[in-house]
């Protein structure tokens, strides 16, 4: 059979393809619908948080920080409850990372504040002596891309029925509505309102001035995103 295949390239290629495709069919597909169901308490990202997530991706924060707490005592002691599949239901793409040069950030919003992040991004080793993380000073100057975040919200609500402007169940039995603008102008206004809350807790005068003038530096969006990680 093998000798015959080696003289018939077409059938050889088909044979190879079937052999390699088999594992994907059996291993990946069966779980697809179940794995993407959100757990109670998981809400979609707001416009500003999503813009912050884009800043996180743009700077490859995931190259050094994971967002996956494994079910070990040492990890739950350090980072909080282990991760559940449904908590990632609105993560497109997933940001689990593959290397912890720095600590996990899955629940960083539980134990770090706006103020801490501001100081840390300007001078990581000033906040954590011995840190090898570089400073991210340009985040204080570059402006966040709110329009692209808004376009992503529209896309996921249209294609994947992500529940924007709809009540989402919370752990305490209440519901939460994450708003998405009906127009680009409204989306920007919503993001700015959120940015003002963050900027109020910050010290950097340039950032405060920018937000007062209706602009949103990347650092504000990034902090909004990290505060949402709980």
């Amino acid at each position: 059979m093998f000798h015959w295949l080696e003289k018939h390239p077409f059938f050889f290629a088909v044979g190879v393809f079937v052999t390699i495709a088999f594992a994907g069919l059996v291993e990946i597909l069966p779980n697809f619908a179940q794995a993407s169901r959100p757990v109670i308490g998981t809400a979609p990202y707001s416009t500003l948080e999503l813009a912050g997530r884009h800043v996180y991706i743009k700077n490859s924060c995931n190259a050094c920080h994971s967002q996956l707490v494994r079910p070990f005592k040492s990890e739950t002691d350090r980072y909080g409850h282990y991760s559940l599949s449904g908590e990632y239901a609105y993560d497109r793409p997933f940001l689990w990372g593959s290397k912890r040069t720095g600590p996990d950030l899955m629940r960083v919003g539980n134990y770090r504040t706006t103020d801490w992040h501001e100081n840390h991004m300007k001078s990581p080793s000033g906040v954590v002596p011995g840190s090898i993380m570089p400073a991210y000073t340009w985040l204080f100057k570059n402006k966040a891309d709110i329009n692209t975040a808004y376009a992503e919200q529209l896309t996921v609500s249209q294609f994947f029925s992500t529940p924007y402007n709809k009540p989402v169940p919370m752990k305490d039995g209440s519901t939460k509505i994450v708003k998405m603008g009906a127009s680009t102008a409204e989306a920007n206004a919503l993001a700015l309102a959120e940015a003002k809350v963050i900027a109020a807790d910050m010290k950097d005068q340039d950032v405060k001035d920018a937000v007062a003038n209706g602009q949103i530096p990347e650092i504000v969006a990034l902090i909004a995103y990290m505060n949402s990680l709980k």
Partner: protein
Amino acid sequence: MENRPLEYDYTVAKMFMFTTIALGIVGMLIGVILAFELAFPGVNTILGQGLAEFTNYSRLRPLHTDAVIFGFTLSGIWATWYYVGQRVLKVSMAESGFLMFIGKLHFVLYMVVVVAVVASLFLGITTSKEYAEFEWPIDIAVVVVWVLFGVSIFGLIGIRREKSLYISIWYYIATFLGIAMLYLFNNMEIPTMLATNAAGESGIGNWWHSVSMYAGTNDALVEWWYGHNAVAFGFTVPIVAMIYYFLPKESGQAIYSYKLSLLSFWGLMFVYLWAGGHHLLYSTVPDWMQTMGSIFSVILILPSWGSAINMLLTMKGEWQQVAASPLIKFMVLGSTFYMFSTLEGPIQAIKSVNAIAHFTDWIVGHVHDGTLGWVGFMIMAALYHMAPRVFKREIYSKSLMVSQFWIQTLGVVLYFTSMWIAGITQGMMWRAHDEFGNLAYSFIDTVTVLHPYYAIRGVGGLLYLVGFLMFAYNIYKTMSARPVEESELQNASPMGA
């Protein structure tokens, strides 16, 4: 005329040889910079605060991985394809104007993609998925380049004189099919500019931005099915294709066992795809998938060692060649590193070992003993073997090759030993508890302890880069070395002092 050997046309092979070397230097240089950034964070602002955004670790990291995978390795795969393909199928590229055109177009479009990738990653335009960072416009261009590669493979097969496909061709076909399937499914994404809102606005935001079709756990599952098997079909399958051709050619020995090559090939094809789950152990992926990933990773030792043992036994009775020829040295040590790496990987895929190893530098060490020791050595050996045949000149310097071999071997050893120690140290410190059940170390303790190992790793990487520059210089000088006759090109490559 009847008995004259075929003249092969190496125009396209030469082009890809050039990019193999150029992109190899770029990718490895960035790698060395990254290594020193971890050891000495001041290197992050090496070009000043103003350019820190473009020289800091996190922005450069995907550039390193993509430059060595899709630059150096892929160019090497294609350089050897455009050389080996013709020779084992007994047909010249010059016989088909169409295939020649496809080959050149393949190269030109590849160059366009390379430029787009470098520019976009520097600007931070990325999907964040490892080894699949490119945004959708580049993904489309990649698919076109890949289809051209496929046309070249099957076109050349279509006009072949040798009816039976040699083992190397099996592996090239598998490379093409495997990457095609994986890349397409992992990069399913929707451009966000397609969205419209209630106000009737459309085309909002950046046109190059897209959102993944899969969310969370599913996205991770597809990504690591891809990520792991991009290693399979980029770092293993095509490199095995190379060694099956170049080792017998250079040594003048026949492959030890046809049956072993059959077992290894079909075994590798079937088993490899299952093993992706070992990247997701203790994650939110269902338990049975994790276990399957673990088990199949261990089974994977069989086909991997099958190929490697087949190669080592091919040298049976001819071991003096290892001492005599630096080219054989590269290939034999390459297969040894392949065995080593394919034993280390399954060990790390065992759940209890993975609990310590995952997220640490041990994984980084594992990747590099495979890529530096196996992929890098094999591609350089292939280019060394090709150079005299392509340029019709002897290799410029044998002694330079020998020095390069030892410098790079020392580099690889420093690299993986330091990363083993770093990884296991960190993994153990993360989980250590004191007598009262509290965590024994804060996270920063587990970072500062790694400093000496990061420095050693940087030196190891630097040595490898120096060796690669010696390789580039040797190939460059080969183009003006002593010309050789066809008769001198039987097996062992001619080398100058």
